[in-house]
């Protein structure tokens, strides 16, 4: 079955659109598979996603149940990663927290990547005053330090996960717009785009179907590399009390409350720290691998 698919996808004499498309995808997958760091990153991320999705099944305790008799306990068989200052099981909180943290990442990316792609390709393709207007707006957002703008935004709204997502999204899109614009500028005057223009296709069709697909690979790479910083920004907002609110077990918020006991009960802060480190690192590995595979400049 798998061998059949392999032979079918790698067949140089593809006989259908589907086969040609799968051949492309399969070759990308093969190249990615040959990159050990990227595979490590992908496996870690995959595991985290599965763990977060299955949190209700896997968590040994309810993440919100307090047990004040047993607060700040060392790791035991009952509580594998110990308990926090209210006696809640850290492992369970970590698993449920993964849902919030990864959810924030996914939500931000879904909001940000299409916006950045649209702004960048439109600015790059049309040029002139459209380009100037869109890029100056981008510059305005780029001029603010990310965390500060997010902080101001969350403070203006109300602290919470939704505001954190919105704030991070608001500060995360400008780099994508810049990348998409740069990519668009390199292909805008190429003959193959002019050839499409010679079909009489509208500018929107050219942007959507011919220019944007060329910008997607570098955007995917950048998004993957950025996921680490989105996680850290989300955690920072949580740490500063502007993100997820107690009792929700967001990783940054967990570190924030644990910092009071960081010297005596270090294991309370260690687990969420490790979780953030591991996931960020995994996203960076995957991003690096994807860059090697997808970067059109290495064709």
């Amino acid at each position: 079955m798998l061998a059949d698919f392999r032979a079918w996808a790698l067949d140089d004499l593809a006989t259908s659109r589907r086969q040609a498309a799968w051949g492309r995808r399969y070759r990308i997958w093969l190249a990615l598979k040959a990159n050990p760091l990227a595979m490590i990153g992908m496996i870690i991320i995959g595991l985290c996603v599965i763990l977060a999705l299955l949190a209700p099944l896997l968590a040994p305790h309810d993440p919100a149940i307090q047990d004040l008799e047993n607060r700040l306990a060392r790791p035991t068989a009952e509580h594998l990663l110990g308990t926090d200052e209210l006696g809640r099981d850290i492992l369970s909180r970590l698993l449920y927290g993964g849902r919030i943290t990864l959810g924030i990442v996914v939500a931000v990316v879904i909001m940000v990547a299409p916006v950045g792609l649209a702004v960048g390709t439109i600015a790059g393709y049309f040029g002139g005053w459209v380009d100037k207007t869109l890029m100056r707006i981008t510059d305005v957002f780029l001029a603010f330090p990310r965390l500060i703008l997010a902080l101001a935004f969350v403070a203006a709204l109300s602290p919470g996960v939704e505001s954190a997502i919105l704030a991070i999204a608001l500060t995360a899109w400008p780099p994508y717009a810049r990348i998409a614009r740069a990519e668009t500028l390199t292909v805008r005057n190429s003959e193959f785009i002019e050839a499409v223009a010679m079909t009489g296709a509208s500018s929107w069709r050219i942007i959507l179907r011919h220019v944007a697909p060329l910008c997607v690979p570098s955007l995917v790479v950048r998004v993957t590399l950025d996921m680490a910083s989105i996680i850290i920004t989300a955690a920072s907002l949580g740490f500063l009390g502007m993100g997820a609110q107690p009792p929700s077990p967001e990783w940054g918020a967990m570190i924030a409350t644990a910092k009071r006991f960081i010297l005596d009960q270090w294991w309370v802060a260690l687990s969420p720290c490790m979780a953030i480190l591991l996931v960020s690192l995994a996203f960076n590995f995957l991003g690096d691998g994807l860059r090697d595979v997808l970067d059109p400049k290495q064709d």
Partner: protein
Amino acid sequence: MSDKMIDVRDLRVSFGAKEVVKGVSLAVQRGESFGVVGESGSGKSTVLRALAGLNHHWSGEIDFDGVPVGAKRPRAFFRKVQMVFQDPFGSLHPRQTIDRILSEFLAVHGMDDMDGRLNRALEAVALPQSVRFRFPHQLSGGQRQRVAIARALIAEPKVLLLDEPTSALDVSVQAEVLNLLAHLRESRGLTYVMVSHNLSVVAHLCSRLGVMQHGELVEQLSVEDLRARRATHPHTRELVELSRSLETPV
């Protein structure tokens, strides 16, 4: 309806303050093949791009089939006029299959019988059906240029604008592509405007040619006149001499 397929009067194109095409006038008859030669920078490609509607900053008058056209062309214009680009490696979208590249025109114009049209276009340029779902990087230069020609033909145009269609190809492949173009013109009654810096290529495919220098069309003459050395303008003679001296076997 007049016999003139293309009528250009006083075409001027400027890039910023620099005028690169300085009042070119030319007429191409229906079914004729007209060549434009000149050194690089003489403005010959710019004229062609203005004809194709790829350059919007021109002044003067351009008529196709008796109908004047403006800077922006309506969609129907591209059913009449198509273009083949110089670089077969740059003119095909690197991430699209041949199938997708060829079907784009049909999709934009909502034409029916996509499969049939695609297969006939591939057949017309003597490409096997097996290339249809390949990517451009899997084809040779000559095959790519055939795909580019097929893409132009799929619109069933009356006019084909050729921008140095063979200059990026090997000499042996050049001849193949030129013969293909000559055959297509005869069988479909196409009108060609071909830009080239190579006099012998133009003489092979065209019956009449214009010589450009510094943005001006300095001379128009028939290929017979050219062969008989009846060129009058010094720049034309220069080009002829250059071409002969290059092609004399050692």
